[in-house]
């Protein structure tokens, strides 16, 4: 089986998922077709639903939304005997700070994701799919609606997909600016028109999901991976990554690197390669102070972790999480306390308010971290922060509580001396504090 042609396979950090180089515009339907588009749907329709699901399971595709749960296993949780309709819901509520990978598909290259949705809906037996896109993406949402209309006109969607007996409708649904809606049960509540408050589980969405019906919720990048699996087969997909964590991965680089952006590489690519080969190293080659490896909720690592392989199991073994593969680097000169104020404020703002430990704890942590940064810290505040965080961990309905607690614990543990110094001095020892005092833009870019 031949690999699908790609736009810029030779360019570093481009490949099967990331087809456009930075600065290139969008992949149109015609361009997608010229690149072998919809071969995955055609192959899937010949294979049959069960064979497609088996292929995805054998590909060891771990969900790209952050948790890394095997997609094929998730699909297997659907009840076999329910008379209710099944839904496929795609989580395009990209909101984890540091993360900007799904936006690539939503804004510039939507057809691989849409094709993956058709393949997935076929495999799980869904006749309706919803694409829940974060509300800020007003223009991408309008573009996605047009893309769906194009697919209807072309016979790729509707009562008969490519002349088969399989029918599918895809609807684009806007969110409205709530990070918690990236949690899958909150997303369902939001899709139903309610406040995005996560549901108690069990029952899991696969059993009781959207409108009370069996529902599979997958991430945008996961859909592009499903398309790739249906196209090239599980074996080839596994070979593009690791045996137990198959496929390519889109990594994001942000913060104090010379070339921030998105880079595709095999799952398990070492952090060092991402930061130095793709990212060009740090601005002014300053020493690394911290690396947030997978989005703001993942515990901060240090330069001693540069040889960690960026796959779900390896990053976990190193004490953090791969999350969304969104790597944020900060260098010496950055105030860790000040950086944490941003994270603490974020989680306090985004807590849905349903569970007391998270609702009260996130606000309390924000106040304590801000007090330390502003010179009003008290001796014992580090232990207080750890105590609050540890009382949130594991005590909430959804993972937002843990997501808020983990960075606080990791920052206090890694930079404790700096926190203590703030308290002892009664203020921030850093000037500026964001490590950005001397006009550091992109390489050759900003003045």
């Amino acid at each position, binding site marked *: 089986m031949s690999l699908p042609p790609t736009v810029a396979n030779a360019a570093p950090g481009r490949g099967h998922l990331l087809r456009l180089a930075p600065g290139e515009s969008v992949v149109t339907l015609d361009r997608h077709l010229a690149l072998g588009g919809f071969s995955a749907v055609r192959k899937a329709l010949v294979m049959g639903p069960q064979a497609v699901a088996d292929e995805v399971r054998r590909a060891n595709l771990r969900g790209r939304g952050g948790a890394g749960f095997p997609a094929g296993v998730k699909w297997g949780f659907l009840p076999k005997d329910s008379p209710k309709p099944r839904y496929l819901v795609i989580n395009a509520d990209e909101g984890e*700070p540091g993360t*900007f990978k799904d936006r690539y598909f939503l804004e510039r290259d939507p057809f691989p994701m849409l094709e993956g949705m058709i393949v997935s809906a076929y495999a799980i037996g869904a006749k309706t799919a919803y694409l829940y896109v974060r509300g800020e993406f007003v223009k991408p949402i309008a573009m996605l609606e047009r893309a769906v209309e194009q697919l209807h006109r072309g016979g790729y969607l509707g009562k008969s997909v490519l002349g088969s007996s399989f029918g599918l409708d895809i*609807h684009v649904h806007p969110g409205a600016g709530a990070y918690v809606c990236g949690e899958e049960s909150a997303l369902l509540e939001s899709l*139903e028109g309610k406040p995005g408050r996560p549901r108690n589980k069990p029952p899991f969405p696969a059993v009781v999901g959207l409108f009370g019906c069996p529902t599979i919720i997958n991430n945008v990048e996961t859909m592009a991976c499903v398309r790739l699996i249906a196209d090239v087969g599980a074996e080839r997909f596994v070979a593009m990554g690791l045996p137990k964590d198959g496929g390519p991965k889109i990594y994001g680089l*942000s913060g104090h690197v010379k070339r921030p952006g998105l880079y595709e590489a095999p799952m398990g690519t070492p952090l060092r390669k991402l930061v130095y080969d793709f990212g060009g190293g740090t601005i002014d080659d300053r020493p690394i102070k911290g690396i947030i490896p997978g989005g703001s909720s993942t515990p901060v690592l240090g330069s001693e972790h540069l040889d960690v392989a960026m796959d779900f199991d390896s990053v976990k073994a190193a004490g953090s999480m791969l999350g969304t593969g969104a790597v*944020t680097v900060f260098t010496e000169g950055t105030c860790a306390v000040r950086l944490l104020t941003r994270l603490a404020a*974020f989680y306090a703002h985004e807590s849905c308010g349903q569970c007391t430990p998270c609702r009260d704890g996130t606000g309390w942590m924000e106040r304590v971290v801000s007090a330390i940064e502003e010179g009003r810290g008290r001796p014992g505040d580090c232990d207080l922060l750890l105590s609050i965080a540890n009382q949130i961990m594991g005590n909430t309905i959804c993972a937002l509580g843990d997501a808020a607690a983990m960075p606080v614990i990791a920052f206090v543990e890694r930079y404790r001396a700096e926190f203590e110094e703030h308290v002892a001095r009664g203020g921030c020892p850093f000037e500026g504090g*964001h490590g950005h005092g001397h006009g550091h833009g992109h390489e050759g870019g900003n003045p």
Partner: protein
Amino acid sequence: MAPAFSTEGEARLKKLLGRYPDRRAALIPVLHLASREFGFLSREVMEYVAGRLGLPEAYVLTTATFYTMLPKRPLGRFHVQVCVNVACHLRGADGIVEHLERRLGIGPGEMTEDRTFSLEGVQCLAACGTAPAMQVNDDYYEDLTLAKVDEILDALRSSAGGAA
């Protein structure tokens, strides 16, 4: 005057209602539509939406008040939202916010007297690889510098007819 959707708004409403087996699911898209048509979601607009969807007003209120993107107060003609989260912070978002405050003469959560600009510090816009970033109405502006912010503000001002 009682709120009423425009002809285009009515067409959009009909389309949205066709997407879901349950009318309540259309609520957030319809609230987006309403805030576009009427500027923001006043109590009167929320009552109107409740009536159009055949939903209890409490359903509309409980949803509208949960989401930050559904405006419950008037916004400027240009609503400037600057990301202040981690990636943008590391690339100078604080300086961008200070500059905007100085240029516009307002702080976050405020609106200029002529209602041309409103300013807000917001959470991650998913533009971390092109930080710092801000959103003005539907448009993203990325890789910001102070000079770029000036250019953007000047262009917006002139499109507003030289006001402000």
